Each structure stands twice: as structure tokens, then as C-alpha cells.
């Protein structure tokens, strides 16, 4: 019973409490790039979740076989294999999504959520726990993407779920192709500056909510969250990296 409870926790923590994008500030590149439309976000979310779950399971299975010194390259090979598989699946079944995501699809390899979870969780925990951790984190990532994309698509393009039929036609549904809501949208929001702006505001909102619940703000944990932290000389040299001093200052302030 207690074990079931803790497994449920592994799953649910990724959704809100430790949401990879909004709380751990991981995977910012794909979040900013893909959240132009809800359809792309759902596609990206599913692809990343698939890779995350599969790589978490395999890495967890192999955790006693992989020597710790070469674990990062080993993880990268596992992740890259699954990304290649997902890439081929998307190319074959949803070519429109492949065109929309472009280079960001193969770049799931270097998405720090996936390598980060491999390093922080799957390399140390049992297979079922790693599976649920991957699933939860993947759904949390998708959720954050959809929140961003909803704002950016409705205000920036004036549509909602535009060209969703490229995904739903896999299930035989092609009649629904999304809503048109605004006639004169704020086009800037679908461009690069809009990505940064909306992410900043969503982050501020997430911080505000966390503050209400008495939890610490999401900070860019920078090097600490980076999967390369263990092998990184920037961390070793100063025992802390660029962003660490800021955190210390904050602690001092709160102590005062």
C-alpha cells in the first residue's frame, strides 16, 4: 500500500509540483520554439513523452550495467536511439507535424528534461518508478507547452487548435480543423519576442501561485539542474557555477 502511494507520487509530482518547465526551468528551448500553435505543442509533447518514458525505462533497466564513468554518453546513445525511432514514426504517420517541428524534433536528444531525468532519477530508481516519473514529467511538459501555446495561438494567430486534423486523422477524424477567434490578432506573439514575453508572464504567474502555496519561486537553477553538472568543470572549479551566487545572496537576505 505504501509502495503504491509512493509510485503514485512519482507520477503526480511531474504534473504540477515539479513541473519540468514551470518549476524546474528545464527544456526552455523547445518550449519557446514550439508553443506557436497548440497542435504543434501536443505533437511535440507526445513525442517528448514517448522518448522520456522509453529512455527512462531502458536506462533504469541498465542502471546496474552502465559504469558510472561513462554513464552520460551511454544515456545519450539510449536517448538518441529513441529519438530516431520517434522521428521515423512522425515522418511516416504525421508528415505535417514533421515539417512544422523541423529541427526541433531531432533536438529532443539534447532536451535537458530527458537527460536530466535519466541522470537524476532513472539511473538510481526501479523500473516502475522510472516509468511513472517519465510519464508524469512528459505530461507536465506537454501541459506547460499547451498553456503557453493556447495564449500565443489565440492572441497571436487568432485561431485555436488550428490544423489539429493533422493529428486527429490518425484516428480517422478529419472534419474538425480548429476555431477562428480573432480577426486582427497580435502577430508579434507568434514570433520570437512573443515566445520570451509569454514565457516570462506565465512564469511570473506560476511563481505567484507557488508563493501563495508557500513554496519557493522557480529560479533558473542553471548548472545545478544541468545534466552535465557532474562532469562540468565550471561547477567543480568554483564548487558552484554562475547562477549559484545569486541564490546564496537570496538566502542571506531572507536570513537578515
Amino acid at each position: 500500500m505504501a509502495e503504491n502511494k509512493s509510485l503514485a507520487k512519482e507520477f503526480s509530482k511531474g504534473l504540477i509540483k515539479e513541473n519540468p518547465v514551470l518549476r524546474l526551468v528545464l527544456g526552455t528551448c523547445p518550449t519557446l520554439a514550439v508553443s506557436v500553435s497548440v497542435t504543434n505543442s501536443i505533437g511535440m509533447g507526445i513525442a517528448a513523452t514517448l522518448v522520456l518514458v522509453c529512455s527512462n525505462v531502458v536506462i533504469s533497466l541498465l542502471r546496474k550495467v552502465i559504469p558510472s564513468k561513462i554513464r552520460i554518453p551511454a544515456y545519450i546513445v539510449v536517448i538518441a536511439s529513441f529519438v530516431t525511432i520517434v522521428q521515423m514514426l512522425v515522418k511516416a504517420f504525421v508528415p505535417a507535424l514533421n515539417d512544422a517541428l523541423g529541427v526541433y524534433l531531432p533536438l529532443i536528444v539534447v532536451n535537458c528534461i530527458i537527460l536530466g531525468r535519466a541522470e537524476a532519477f532513472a539511473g538510481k530508481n526501479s523500473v516502475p518508478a522510472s516509468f511513472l516519473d517519465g510519464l508524469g514529467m512528459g505530461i507536465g511538459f506537454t501541459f506547460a507547452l499547451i498553456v503557453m501555446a493556447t495564449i500565443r495561438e489565440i492572441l497571436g494567430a487568432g485561431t485555436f487548435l488550428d490544423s489539429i486534423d493533422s493529428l486527429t486523422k490518425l484516428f480517422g477524424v478529419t472534419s474538425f480543423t480548429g476555431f477562428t477567434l480573432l480577426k486582427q490578432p497580435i502577430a508579434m506573439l507568434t514570433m520570437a519576442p512573443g515566445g520570451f514575453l509569454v514565457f516570462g508572464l506565465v512564469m511570473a504567474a506560476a511563481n505567484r501561485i507557488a508563493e501563495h502555496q508557500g513554496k519557493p519561486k522557480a529560479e533558473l537553477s542553471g548548472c545545478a539542474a544541468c545534466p552535465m553538472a557532474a562532469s562540468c568543470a565550471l561547477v567543480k572549479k568554483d564548487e558552484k557555477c554562475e547562477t549559484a551566487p545569486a541564490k546564496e545572496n537570496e538566502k542571506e537576505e531572507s536570513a537578515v
Partner: protein
Amino acid sequence: MKLAGIFLTAILTENFILCKFLGICPFLGVSKKLKTAIGMSTAVIFVMALATAVTFPINKYLLEKNGLDYLQTIVFILVIAALVQFVEIVLKKFIPSLYEALGIYLPLITTNCAVLGVVLLNVDNGYNFAESMINSIGGGAGFMVAMIMFAGVRERLEGCDIPKALKGLPITLIAAALVSLSFQGFSGVVDGIFGLFS
């Protein structure tokens, strides 16, 4: 002319950080001080150029020739990881002064999406060797321009009175939005100068 166009496009209109969202982690993480921003971006230019020089022949003569295109992602990331490790060892042994300056940033760059991104984009765009090299160096230079500009902006942010909810990361992102907005002003500039590219 075409090479100059590619170079300027990579720096200004298709800036890796500000327009393509590649390499956001170091952009937000290492841009607090000008010195580290410069060190990081120099290392990025170096690794991007080297990665392109190595992956281009591998892709052309090994993968494409044997119909193994689908292995690109896996091969490129492994080559980049091995290359970075190799460069680190060589620099440490033979050019310690350069290692001092760049070495600490090298491991971070392995999983930097800008490096894998530039290599994949070169293949996607069907660039030849010279074009690929120029695109990579231009991309790295654009990375540097964005890092240095943003380091300046962040230093100014330090002493500002910011609404409580926006403190920290949110205001950094909003500042990045404004820097990015200014780069949108370059759209069309390269077309205007060279009139060759769409």
C-alpha cells in the same frame, strides 16, 4: 556574395538565440557577467566550427553514400560529444592557456542544442562545405552578439526596482523579449542588401 549573405543571415535575421530559440540554457544561465558570456560564446563558436568540419564529411561520405541518413541524429550527437572530450584533452595537454580560458565551458557545450542544431540545419538546408562552415561560424558569432548584448541588459536589471512577481527569471525573459524584438527589426535587411535570398 552568397556566403556573405549566409553569414549575415546567421548573425542578424536568423539569430540562433533570439530568433530560433537554440541555446537558451546558456543564454539565461551564463549571461550574468560579461566575462563569462564572452568565454562561453567563444567556446561555442569554436565547437560549432569544429563540429561542422567533422560532421560534414561523415554525413556526406559515410551516411548519405550508404543510405544511412536516418542515423544522423545519433551519429552527430556522439561525434560532437567525443569531439568535445577530445578537444578538452588536447587543449589541456598542449595549449594550457587556451584551456584555462575555454576549457571550463566545453563540457556544457556537448548538450547545447545550438551545436547539434547548427549541424542539423546545415544538412536540412543542403549547404555545401563552405556554406556550412560560414553558417556555423556566423551562427556562433550571432550567439556571441546576443550573449554580450544580453549581459549588458542584465547588468542594468540588477539595480532596478522590479515588481515582486516578476523578480528573477520572469523579468529576465521579458528583457530577452525586448532584445529579441529589436532583432526583428533586421528582418529583410539581408534581402535588401543582397537581394538574393528569400
